[in-house]
């Protein structure tokens, strides 16, 4: 699912491939986490309460046939928001709102997001840097609630000590959109990357390059609505 959302984000930036963009958009509007089915919603509301969440608020799964999780939902929201900048429709707005509501429902108690749920067996889960950064990117045009403020503050505080390329890159991409200073973070990221030879996977390398280019190009995840 994230492949489709990220592809749509990319294609949103160019004028070609209108048919592919349309197909991706319609697929994203229809796709949903498995818990969106009435039977699972009923089960999670009545019989299975070990994980705290509102099953009426569903997003997107990593892979069809599984439940909604924070990162694919955030990418789904960004892709749909970007695609519908000039052509909003009721189904797309409804789908975006469901995704946003799911993210707001799953936020951790002290701000930020874990991979999917915030409380399991009554125990609050800690936030993850990447999930928080990507979720905040998807909420950039939403009302700045205290929860979004707390999440942003948490991310800023975490970013000060991160020594990992991927997490630091996502911090930069997110904080830049929220107009927070990122130059010191970019300098640290450049040092961590070095000549890039140590980075073995392309996704991390690509994210790092996008982060280093923040401010010099159109931000790939910016939402102008």
């Amino acid at each position, binding site marked *: 699912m994230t492949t489709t959302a990220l592809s749509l984000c990319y294609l949103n930036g160019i004028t070609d491939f209108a048919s592919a963009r349309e197909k991706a958009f319609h697929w994203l509007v229809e796709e949903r986490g498995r818990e969106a089915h009435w039977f699972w919603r009923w089960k999670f509301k009545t019989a299975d309460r070990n994980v705290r969440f509102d099953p009426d608020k569903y997003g997107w799964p990593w892979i069809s046939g599984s439940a909604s999780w924070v990162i694919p939902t955030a990418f789904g929201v960004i892709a749909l928001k970007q695609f519908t900048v000039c052509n909003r429709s009721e189904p797309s707005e409804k789908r975006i709102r469901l995704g946003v509501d799911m993210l707001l429902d799953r936020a951790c108690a002290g701000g930020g997001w874990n*991979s999917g749920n915030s409380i399991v*067996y009554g125990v609050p889960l800690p936030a*993850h840097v990447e999930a928080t950064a990507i979720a905040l990117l998807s909420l950039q045009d939403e009302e700045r609630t205290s929860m979004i403020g707390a999440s942003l503050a948490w991310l800023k505080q975490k970013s000060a000590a*991160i020594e990992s*390329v*991927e997490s630091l890159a996502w911090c930069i991409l997110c904080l830049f959109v929220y107009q927070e200073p990122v130059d010191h973070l970019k300098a640290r990221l450049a040092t961590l990357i070095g000549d890039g030879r140590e980075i*073995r*996977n392309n996704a991390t390398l690509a994210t790092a390059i996008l982060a280093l280019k923040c401010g010099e190009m159109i931000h790939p995840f910016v939402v102008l609505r």
Partner: protein
Amino acid sequence: MNIDRRRFVGATAGMAATTGMAADWFWPKYSVSYQKPRSLVAILNATEYSEKVEALLIDGLRLFRLNVAGRRVLLKPNLVEDLPGPVNTNANIIGTAARCFLRLGAARVVIGEGPGHQRDTELVVQAANLKPHLEDRQIQFVDLNRDELVRVKLKANYSGLGGLWLPRTILDSDFVVSMPKIKTHHWAGVTLSLKNMFGIVPAMKYGWPKNLLHWHGIHESILDICATVPIHFVIADGITAMEGNGPLQGTARDLGKIVLADDPVAADATCARLMGFDPLRVQHLSDAGRFLGNLKTERITMLGERPEPITRPFSVLPEFHYLVAPAH
């Protein structure tokens, strides 16, 4: 003949159970068997993660007369999250095991893991303090979540998945060592060497967490994965284990043991007994005892000392009280 409702329900349930057992007998859900006549298990006593562990581990491994000379060894630890507490397999044990296999003649040692929740594997490796152990050029770390993938037909069919994409690094290894942290688990009851193999399933394909496996049944998926990628050896870290709401939010339990075994089922059964649980009550372990290894004590040879009976079973969530062995 008069038949009341109770008798009818009883007879129907009995027939269903008999049919189920007969079906399993005639049409087993697995196409391989790794069971051998006897399995070897050694329990090593270690109270702390000190430099003494290396001598202890190499002596322990020599008891098994392993032939790893010239082979590509893959160590699969349990590295889950950058959280405090006994969440991850201790880095000293992982690094020590890697050096021990090199001393035993392994051609190369790869430490491979694909964390299930945390997408940034580097963050987990840093938090686990594994980096200093990777300075040896003969020891490599591979992020199994982002490795090259190969589509593989599963060698058991408990989950109904049929096939999975699996990392090339795993499939190219000659000798797979599962290195779990001994922990309770809020969905599976326990997480030991078999459950640890969830970490070989690539999240780049199946997501963080690998939620599709949950929807297809955790116990069932464990069986299918372990039938497809056999575990050749187990080094279970139980010096400081986890009880209660594991695998992430539980509490530390000083068990003071490292469990070695040449059979993952025997290893997990032994670990479960050390935790005060009846291994037959762990669903995937009970089924694994049919074809993935030996569950019963009669078929397990203990090398070195026999385990002392545990004084207090590991605490578990109320849903898993049934795991506790009757003696407790």
